[in-house]
């Protein structure tokens, strides 16, 4: 859960463009008086901002008139939400049973070595964020990794570098 620790000191005016922040305000304004709006708002906000650092959570909490404790609880509960910056591409390595026995772990280790990041972390150039998942329902293709929405199946350790180099 290390990756979930929010960066409190982040300067949102430097991190986000005025357009992004304007969109956030619009999302909040549109959902202000709706019950159960928190998760859709967080989802849309993350779509615009890519990640949800603490100052953004505070803006959402006061905008929707919800306790900050609850907003923080929801963001940390769902693995979909992230409080740290995300890479341009999310790399999801499947470690479900089928992929695991077919070498998923070795693939994961090589990716970690290549990208020099741990699970849940983002590369310093913010190109990749590494995650693991437990089964994506493509067991026949194992071992499988997802980069964004692209599937790379039957992956061999030697091919990992090639896959990484396809994205920039």
């Amino acid at each position, binding site marked *: 859960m290390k990756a979930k620790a929010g960066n409190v000191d982040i300067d949102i005016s430097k991190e986000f463009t005025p357009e992004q922040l304007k969109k956030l305000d619009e999302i909040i304004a549109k959902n202000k008086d709706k019950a159960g709006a928190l998760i859709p708002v967080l989802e849309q906000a993350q779509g615009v901002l890519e990640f949800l650092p603490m100052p953004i959570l505070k803006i959402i909490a006061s905008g929707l008139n919800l306790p900050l*404790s609850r907003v923080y609880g929801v963001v940390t509960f769902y693995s979909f939400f992230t409080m740290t910056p995300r890479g341009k591409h999310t790399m999801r390595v499947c470690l479900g049973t089928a992929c695991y026995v077919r070498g998923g772990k070795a693939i994961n280790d090589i990716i970690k070595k290549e990208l020099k990041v741990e699970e849940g972390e983002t590369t310093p150039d913010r190109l990749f964020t590494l995650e693991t998942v437990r089964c994506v329902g493509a067991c026949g293709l194992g071992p499988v990794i997802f980069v964004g929405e692209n599937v790379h199946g039957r992956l061999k350790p030697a091919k990992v570098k090639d896959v990484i180099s396809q994205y920039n």
Partner: protein
Amino acid sequence: MTMVNITMNGQKISAPAGSNILQAAKQVGIDIPTLCDHPALVSIGACRICVVEVTGQRTLITACTFPITEGMEIQTESPQVVKARKLILDLLFSERNHYCPMCQMSGDCELQNLGYRYGIDHWIYPTYTKGFPVDASRKYFFMDHNRCVLCGRCERACGDLVANHTLGLRNRGASSMIHADANVPFGESTCISCGSCLQVCPTGALCDKRSAYMGRNIQTEHIKSTCNQCSIGCGMEIVTRGGNVLRIESDWDAEINAGLLCKNGRFDPLYEDRTRVTQPMIRIGGKLRPSSWDETLKTIAEKISGTNAKEIGVLTSSNSTNEALYLLGQLFCKELKATNVGLLNSAAPKLFDKPQGSLADIVKSDVILVAGTDPAKDQPVASFFVKHAVDRGAKLILVGGKDNGLAPFATMILADIGKAVEVAERAGSPVVLYGAGITEKGASALKKLQGKAAFVAIEPGVNTRAAVAFGFNNGFKASAAKVLYALLGEQGLESADVLKDVDKKAFVVVQASYVSPITEKADVVLPMAIWSERAGSLTNTEGRVQKVSKAVEPAGEAKSDWEIISLLANKLGKKLATSLDEISARATQELK
């Protein structure tokens, strides 16, 4: 009330429709264990310890959330139920640190009691593999996350009962933890240390620092009383052991607060560090010297007897009981004809002759107008009611500035009371909370809402309403007093300013619990019992008369506030009522 007939453990019972299985069981004394459920909180069915077997149901179901229906057949301790509860307990004990002997809640812990009840005598899973932090950043109580079972009672108490919403639950699964705001130390959060979470915690995760390890519940006495920190009059229980007060708990059955208390009421009285006055003292040769009650009272009586009524001054704290204020009025105003009598704090202006609302109206309102009072600071429990109403969608209109404790919750903050009244006029069921801070103009503006709004005066001080009713609110003139009788009680006064205008040669009698600059200057000091040492009654801001109980013996030779005045009346040869019951009855009669 529609009744529903059910069978529980073979016993035919009927319970009101809409009850859940747990409530129906409680009615007939069937004990279904609970952990996350609490009578004062909304049931969430999270811990699963209350599962029962219901004929026709596919799985075991949680008694705390499942409503009863006609003909339902329930088994509360069947082998299947017991097996499920044991599994839950095995899992709970396997997570975090539940090594009971080291915990001060041992003996009073709901988790431990369940362990005994279901024979959990060993761990079947590996335990305590991961350490969690302990947060002791709050002054009065700490949170040891290692003992937390994540029942969420504290979170619901904070949100649903107190409407403060400081606490939340973060992360998932084995990493789940209770947090404050967005995971800041409790002591730096929006926590107001009301201690409601502390009181509902089933384990030793939340623990009172002061009374930890000072006795198990079975060794203590719980004495119901009324809080005397402000004018709301919350019901509380004074927990004592061996003649000492361990802690204060809230009274779940209390009509006004229903289990709520605030920092001022729950903790502050126990952290008192002023020096007590423990014996009567008379100034002889410029120095205060210990004396006997008899001698001291005789000295006062002689002084008073030889003084013209016009030169007698009486000043009282609103911290006094109804009984003391009644006797003080009877003795000085009625018998001795003194007219220079006053109250140490101001009072809310009297807007109407008849009551126009009660504290219970706050949560039912749609617009709340707050003027001339800061309940978040001075009467926190009243502010909980306001925040509750705001949670439910009520609009809060605050007359005053941003420094008011309710400002963060206000829909609008207005400087002009007239404008606030205009907003309230358009509401469906507005309520007005007003205090001593409103001006005459403000008072007349508020009166426009008569008939439309409920009015609740939030009196400053404690028993201010009774003090005013007994006549202690006339412009007191310190300079006119040749003999001054000051019933100071527990009231803290930073300096002797009150006595600034008193004639240097005046004879000053102070009836006080604590040594202060005023007792230092007095000619006679009478030691007075504090809140936990006196019996009597208090009148709250709505005019409700409530009993206060004596939980422990007074320190040294101190006596109850009313008793001292009663003894003085005897010395003066005035025949006033002498038994507490009689005085209470008369005082209550007069307050009606």
